[in-house]
């Protein structure tokens, strides 16, 4: 390529010729100017060819000059390589080192070190798109004093005006007009102009999400703390969509050869970047807009032949201009193929009939550029993301919005207004309307009042109807294997034909069968052409079989399945694209990096980590942690040389034989206050709390109305009108919400208030036969004797340290145990005091794994592990906790038919015959003998009935063997039976036993 920029025009363009910028493409240095994109620099260097196509490896060239690009993708090397960036939107900055891609990127496995952040703002008016319509809208809205946010994905304002900087706008050259509006907007105090910012998602309540590129263009001078990209969340009172339109290519043979380019892109490369894509051009167009490319090429010194598919040629004004410029125009003709492999060498031109078939011989015209225009598709993505209605306008030959979404406005090419003056009028009008809708009008009375929107509508209609809907050009040789529809996905007309041949009738099915529109460009290049092809392929009965319900699809007359409008019965009439409809538009409009969406929510900031006041001690003592909800809980405390099993065995022995202690601070804690607190809890828990004596505690279970266990915990009665309930660690927030919901919505007459106090209390569980000795040392004022301090009681006392404490005698292990509750800020001190007081007894810290083993040996269920929302207290063997005398949430469900008789899964224990085998939790249980000849290889010949599954599984130090808990159909009647556990393609015999395996008579809790 070298550094000569051979295709750079001598004058013109919005590039800064004083600032040469060097970039490296596949190891070769290429020169461009500030103001270039990577693509325009390539065009200026005569390098139209980019990578090869993704599947077929066909040479490809730059097709467009914008976000619709399907071919020119690059990988930008850096600290973190970024793939699949369109060269057509990538701003040229110094130091770029690129690799051209073959339609697919490579995800860099290195972490991205850059910072990304988010901004949340509210605005009166948001405007998407800074072409003539968007600029006019923003200017009018800003002039009222309204807060305005203007989004522009390009690094420059102007939109279509950028390509034609010398056109006059309000009496000024377009480039100057844009600068004037920019200055006005920047001077307005309440206006935010966001360039390099793509609004990619539009959501309810006019919530627009956009991504802003903030750093690259500053050439590394952005400075510390400036994020590389920012996600904007903008909630707008009114939203103006001035999102423009995309030009469509034309489907003909070999229409993917480098040198075939959208006509509007040719205009852009010449006008904006002074880069000439070709010196001998053929312009192939189905509409008037292609002529702009012809004029631009002629002015740039290229030779041009115009091939106009319309029999009648262009409109009067366009025809006159063509004649004046000396353009050669062939009407009723088409480019039916090209010569060349890596670059266009010649175009074959022939007359075509109404079906796009050749009439007579084709003529070979040598050329190096074929500029194509197959008509225009309004960019309705953001409109459609909000379910804004569309319809096919057969005169405009495009899907256009039927009406704006509520509190939204449409202006310019997005509604088919394809000329600058029309865009200015519409933009100004909606800018005023939008501002007025949120209460802003110009105080100076200078509002543009001559905005004749009706005249724009008339002119739009007058200009319409000049596009030939040429969905397919036959080739000289026949066949459609190189008639590309979606260049990025390498899909051709032959693929569409295959889809309809396979019976696909819905555009959604054709999309998925072929993969058209599933690439990065999301169908901007291929979708409408694919729909157009379907109008040729689905006729008569096939057309009547097109299912309804697509965006932009014509309303059906009569019942679902009846013919779309305009398709008479019988014969072979052709539907319009409106009979087929569009595929659904979804966010993001253009790709957004996950890392940008994550923003600062990465690593430690991904989610809050909750730690207890004792956490530093746990860390210092080598605890391994597990996440329980957001909490970091000690899992086990390995000593040097110990693995997890050894540590857990030692911790279990300490708790069962001596004394151990655990940080139970994470349990959810809720205070329930009020004169009706007892009545309230009576209704919520399955067992009774109203008559619980002050100073006593009771274990309780709460259920949903369907009778299924929801949460459990111990409730203390602190005073006549005060209860203190504990919840599962993970259930604290849900339980508080549940209590508040019922107190507010069903029983507002009850005097009750619920407050989370989880963060206010630290809890140390002291467990084991020697725990009483430890508590006696800590709390000398307390009579801890069995007689004076009964099970399920609590005492308020002052510890030897002077710290006030609430000590409970409750157990989650079956052993004699106490729980010391102190205000959180004393948590670490009291924990250390417990450690000191127990040192003589070799008091041992234990974590959640030991807690699980100990509780499972006693069949204390963990809600959410041994239950799954389909388990009742009775299923858990806890009939004793279900009151028969009072009503409570869920009680009615126990008399439902589904809760009667046999067949419910019940909690039992399972003992593997191999006493060392620890079953995986989730292992399925089946009848012994149910396997038949199934060996575990592949799938069984017929389904084998499942009896249940293992919910918990551990090695028991106390029992000297492995064991599990399981939910088993009719489990309690199966005690003593042998079942088969199936897991990981293996089988093992297990014996069903009573759920409680250790201390079945409950003798140990009193020490």
């Amino acid at each position: 390529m070298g550094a000569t920029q051979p295709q750079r025009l001598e004058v013109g363009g919005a590039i800064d010729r004083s600032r040469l910028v060097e970039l490296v493409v596949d190891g070769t240095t290429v020169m461009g100017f500030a103001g270039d994109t990577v693509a325009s620099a390539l065009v200026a260097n005569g390098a139209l060819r980019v990578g090869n196509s993704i599947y077929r490896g066909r040479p490809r060239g730059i097709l467009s000059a914008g976000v619709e690009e399907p071919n020119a993708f690059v990988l930008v090397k850096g600290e973190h390589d970024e793939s699949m960036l369109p060269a057509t939107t990538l701003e040229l900055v110094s130091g770029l080192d690129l690799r051209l891609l073959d339609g697919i990127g490579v995800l860099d496995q290195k972490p991205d070190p850059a910072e990304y952040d988010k901004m949340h703002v509210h605005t009166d008016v948001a405007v998407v798109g800074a072409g003539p319509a968007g600029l006019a809208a923003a200017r009018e809205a800003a002039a009222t004093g309204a807060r305005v946010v203007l989004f522009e994905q390009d690094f420059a304002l102007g939109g279509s005006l950028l390509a034609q900087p010398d056109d006059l706008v309000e009496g000024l050259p377009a480039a100057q007009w844009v600068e004037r509006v920019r200055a006005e907007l920047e001077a307005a105090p309440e206006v935010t102009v966001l360039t390099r910012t793509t609004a990619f998602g539009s959501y309810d309540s006019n919530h627009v999400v956009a991504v802003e590129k903030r750093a690259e263009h500053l050439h590394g001078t952005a400075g510390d703390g400036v994020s590389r990209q920012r996600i904007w969340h903008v909630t707008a009172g009114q939203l103006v969509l001035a999102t423009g339109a995309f030009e469509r290519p034309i489907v003909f043979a070999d229409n993917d050869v480098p040198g075939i380019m959208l006509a509007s892109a040719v205009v852009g490369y010449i006008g904006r970047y002074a880069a000439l894509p070709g010196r001998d051009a053929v312009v192939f167009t189905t509409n008037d807009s292609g002529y702009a490319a012809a004029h631009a090429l002629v002015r740039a010194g290229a030779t041009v032949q115009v091939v106009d598919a319309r029999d009648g040629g262009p409109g009067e004004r366009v025809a006159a201009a063509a004649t004046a410029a000396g353009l050669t125009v062939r009407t009723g003709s088409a480019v039916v193929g090209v010569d060349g492999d890596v670059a266009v060498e010649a175009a074959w031109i022939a007359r075509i009939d109404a079906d796009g078939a050749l009439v007579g011989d084709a003529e070979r015209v040598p050329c190096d550029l074929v500029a194509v225009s197959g008509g225009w598709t309004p960019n309705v993505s953001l409109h459609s993301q909000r379910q804004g209605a569309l319809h096919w306008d057969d005169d405009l030959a495009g899907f256009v919005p039927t009406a704006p979404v509520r509190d939204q406005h449409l202006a310019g090419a997005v509604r088919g207004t394809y000329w600058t003056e029309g865009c200015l009028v519409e933009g100004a009008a909606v800018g005023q309307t939008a501002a007025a809708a949120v209460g802003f009008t110009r105080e100076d009375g200078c509002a543009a009042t001559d905005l004749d929107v009706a005249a724009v509508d008339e002119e739009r209609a007058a200009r319409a109807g000049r596009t030939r809907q040429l969905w397919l050009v036959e080739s000289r040789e026949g066949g459609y294997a190189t008639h590309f529809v979606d260049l990025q996905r390498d899909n051709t007309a032959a693929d569409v034909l295959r889809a309809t041949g396979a019976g696909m009738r819905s555009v959604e099915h054709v999309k998925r069968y072929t993969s058209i529109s599933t690439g990065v460009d999301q169908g901007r290049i291929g979708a409408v052409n694919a729909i157009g092809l379907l109008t040729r392929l689905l006729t008569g009965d096939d057309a009547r079989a097109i299912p309804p319900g697509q965006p932009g699809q014509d309303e059906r007359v009569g019942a679902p399945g009846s013919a779309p409008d305009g398709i008479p019965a019988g014969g072979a009439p052709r539907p319009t694209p409106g009979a087929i409809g569009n595929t659904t538009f979804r966010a993001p409009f253009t790709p957004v990096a996950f890392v940008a969406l994550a923003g600062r929510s990465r690593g430690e900031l991904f989610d809050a980590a909750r730690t207890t006041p004792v956490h530093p001690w746990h860390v210092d003592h080598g605890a391994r942690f597990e996440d329980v909800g957001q909490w970091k809980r000690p899992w086990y405390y390995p000593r040097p040389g110990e693995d997890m099993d050894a540590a857990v065995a030692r911790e279990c022995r300490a708790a069962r034989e001596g004394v151990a202690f655990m940080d139970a601070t994470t349990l959810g804690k809720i205070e329930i206050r009020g004169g009706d607190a007892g009545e309230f809890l009576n209704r919520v828990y399955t067992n009774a709390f109203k008559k619980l004596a002050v100073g006593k505690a009771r274990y309780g279970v709460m259920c949903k109305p369907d009778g299924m266990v929801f949460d459990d915990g111990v409730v203390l009665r602190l005073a006549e009108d005060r209860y203190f309930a504990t919840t599962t660690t993970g259930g604290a927030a849900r339980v508080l919400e549940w209590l508040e919901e019922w107190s507010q919505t069903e029983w507002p007459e009850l005097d009750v208030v619920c407050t989370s106090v989880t963060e206010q209390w630290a809890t140390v569980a002291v467990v084991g036969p020697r725990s009483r000795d430890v508590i006696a040392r800590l709390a000398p004022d307390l009579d801890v004797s069995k007689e004076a301090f009964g099970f399920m009681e609590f005492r308020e006392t002052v510890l030897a340290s002077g710290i006030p404490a609430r000590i409970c005698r409750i157990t989650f292990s079956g052993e004699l145990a106490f729980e010391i509750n102190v205000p959180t800020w004393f948590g670490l001190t009291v924990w250390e005091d417990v450690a000191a007081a127990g040192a003589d007894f070799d008091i041992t810290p234990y974590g959640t794994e030991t807690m699980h083993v100990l509780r499972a040996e006693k069949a204390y269920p963990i809600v959410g592990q041994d239950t799954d929302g389909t388990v009742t207290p009775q299923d858990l063997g806890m009939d004793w906790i279900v009151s028969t005398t009072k009503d409570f949430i869920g009680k009615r469900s126990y008399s439902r038919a589904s809760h009667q008789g046999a067949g419910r899964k019940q909690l039992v224990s399972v003992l593997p015959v191999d006493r060392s085998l620890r079953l995986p939790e989730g292992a399925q249980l089946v009848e012994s003998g149910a396997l038949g000849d199934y060996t575990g290889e592949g799938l069984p010949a017929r389904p084998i009935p499942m009896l249940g599954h293992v919910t918990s599984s551990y090695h028991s130090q106390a029992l000297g063997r492995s064991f599990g808990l399981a939910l088993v159909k009719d489990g309690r009647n199966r005690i003593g039976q042998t079942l088969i556990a199936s897991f990981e393609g293996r089988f093992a015999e297990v014996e069903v036993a009573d759920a409680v395996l250790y201390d079945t008579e409950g003798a140990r809790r009193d020490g």
Partner: protein
Amino acid sequence: MLIIDCPNCGPRPETEFGYGGQAHVAYPADPHALTDEEWAQYLFYRDNPKGSYAERWVHSAGCRKWFNAVRDTRTYEISHVYRQGDPRPDLSKGA
């Protein structure tokens, strides 16, 4: 993202709220007087209209109060917001 007009706190983003399904479905005064089918209707069956729907919301990250709203299930537009215990608005009078 919906902007929801909390009766206590004013317009706030949807992420501050929790959803509670259909409004005006009272817990039966005497569940035990119901047949299994009637109880199942309460437990498992809710309306699923295309159009206006009175539903419950709770301002979890705000005042933590439950309230009711009428939302159009086609457009997600919330036409009415009213306090817990207030009657369902007369939709025939228009939003």
